[in-house]
């Protein structure tokens, strides 16, 4: 089917929809439609799929990815990418657990210390991208390798001994409001803060501006380098915070715990309609992308799909969805 007829059909459908739906980004609508489809398929497979307990459990698992994807979205909105997520996650988790071994003060400062380690990784990324003008893809791969090297030296090649603090476990698995896991509340708070920053603050405006055309943003008086630096620092910090939550969830840190979050975090942002070239996208889309990815993972594991099949389906789904609505314009 050619693109013109496809968009014609979409337009025809859009004309009959209520106003708030007509204004919505087609990518976000598609992502939500896919979520409904996945839920439907899952409920055909197993009746317990639509039970509130299962759905809340999914939301809880999604919130770890959601926190990490929030940082990734900020960076992608700038037209950059953060490939240091795997070891920023692992470093945050491992450093927070390590700090807990140093007496009561260490326990109290475990979470901020872990997050600060992620911020440090992000600042190195930000300096490289904003001030040294190194392509973000390259510098973040390099800091990822350095963070990995540091963690390998720190642990001596073994899994770290220290386990997560009670506070970390409470954040990841506890319940402040009955029935709603704390992790979901945290994701909601971070998400709300992100929406506020992106839509109501000058920082958010600057992020969208830089993503569209950094040169124009610079000429209109924005200190683009500072904004890029802050965005990378926030992304590193949120990745590490995601790692802290994961460590609380599993009650310990592990070396390769972040590997499984790089592709999903990028995929969640991009499937949610945020342009990989930057400057366009909404947080609602990222939420949809995160839930979509988590549901897909969950259904594949419920169907007892082996790891190999999961990886294949995963890659194919992402490429297919991107081909549907993530294509760059043709060169003229």
């Amino acid at each position, binding site marked *: 089917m050619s693109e013109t007829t496809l968009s014609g059909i979409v337009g025809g459908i859009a004309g009959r929809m209520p106003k708030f739906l007509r204004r919505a980004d087609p990518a976000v609508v598609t992502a939500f439609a896919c979520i409904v489809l996945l839920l439907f398929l899952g409920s055909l497979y197993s009746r317990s799929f639509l039970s509130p307990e299962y759905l809340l459990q999914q939301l809880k698992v999604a919130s770890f990815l959601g926190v990490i994807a929030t940082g990734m979205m900020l960076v992608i909105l700038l037209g950059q990418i953060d490939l240091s997520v795997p070891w920023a996650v692992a470093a945050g988790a491992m450093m927070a657990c390590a700090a807990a071994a140093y007496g009561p003060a260490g326990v109290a400062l475990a979470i901020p210390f872990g997050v600060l380690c992620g911020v440090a990784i992000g600042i190195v990324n930000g300096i490289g991208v904003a001030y040294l003008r190194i392509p973000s893809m390259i510098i973040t791969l390099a800091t990822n390798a350095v963070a990995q090297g540091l963690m390998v030296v720190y642990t001596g*090649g073994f899994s770290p001994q220290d386990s997560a603090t009670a506070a970390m476990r409470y954040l990841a698995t506890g319940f402040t409001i009955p029935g709603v896991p704390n992790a979901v509340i945290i994701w909601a708070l971070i998400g709300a803060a992100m929406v506020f920053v992106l839509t109501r603050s000058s920082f958010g405006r600057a992020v969208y501006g830089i993503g569209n055309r950094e040169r124009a943003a*610079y000429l209109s008086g924005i200190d683009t380098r500072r904004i890029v630096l802050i965005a990378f620092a926030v992304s590193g910090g949120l990745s590490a915070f995601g790692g802290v939550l994961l460590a609380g969830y599993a009650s310990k840190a592990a070396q390769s715990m972040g590997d499984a979050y790089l592709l999903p975090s990028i995929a969640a942002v991009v499937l949610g309609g945020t342009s990989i070239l930057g400057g366009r996208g909404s947080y609602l889309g990222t939420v949809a992308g995160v839930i979509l990815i988590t549901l897909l993972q969950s259904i594949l594991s419920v169907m007892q799909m*082996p790891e*190999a099949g999961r990886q294949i389906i*995963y*890659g194919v789904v992402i*490429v297919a969805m991107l081909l549907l609505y*993530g294509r760059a314009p043709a060169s003229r």
Partner: protein
Amino acid sequence: MRDWRYWLAEQRGTLLAFGIFIVMFAIYSANHPAGFTANVVQTAANKGVLLAFVAMAQTLVVLTAGIDLSVGMIFTLTNCMASWLVIGTGLETAFGVLAVLGTGLICGAVNGAIVIYGRLQPIVATIATGAVFFGLALLLRPVPGGSVNEDLADFLTGRFFGVVPASLVALLVVVLVVWVPFSRSEFGRAAYAAGSSETAAYMSGVPIRRGKFLAYTLAGLLAAIGGLFLTFFTYTGEAAYASGNAYTLFSIAAVVLGGVSLFGGKGSAIGAIFGALAFRTIGDLLFVFDFDPLWQPLFQGVILLIAVSLGAFALFRVRNRLEWFL
């Protein structure tokens, strides 16, 4: 008369990589307990050649201003495949080799088709296809194992006439058969042109799409040759996620050390080969100086960080601040 100056300017990155490699290898072999012997050279060559193939693959794509984050996974997939197929009688082995190389070509072509005809960003597209390739590798080898035709393996990892490492000869043959014809062909020039300015190349009627497609496809082939050699060295196939990722990462480091511009259009695969050999030698320097191997990942990461930061020196030449923003 001034021709040699242009040649020098064009080859500066390659020559620099060659120089770094020579210096590093001199330090390495001078401090090696066994000294500069045929054995030391053979071992170093066998390790270096693996990365050199993957780095050549990465170069082809980077020249077009793209990036292939799936090379390491193609390398892993073809390794697993070779551990099933490259075995048995001469004819069966030959068929196996062809099948493995064909798989590499197909993987590369899939990447190329998605990036060029699907118009997706190479980073995201190749991360996703990398997941698929790794899944296929895991399907072939859920646990490490398999075997390979040991006569062929020993022949290609041994020495010719007792001195020349066979793997280096194989590398030279691949350069002559794949890289030289490609870089001198119309499509090779199109790949360079697309990397340096896609719009200008498009306007001048250069076949950029076919050039880029061929670059991605041949990158798959080169990564497959690397995977085949990995099987020859280890005699087994293993779907290791960390090792595949490490090769992708190191291939980028090798390309940068080899003087290939990450913005595309500048550099050559020869430079990347020396970049790869230099990177491997630097990584192994730790061993001859008796450091704890635990420090190796950190050491390699720091080298990578320094190598990519070197590109920032170009900033000193910027006169107009607007040139910051490409």
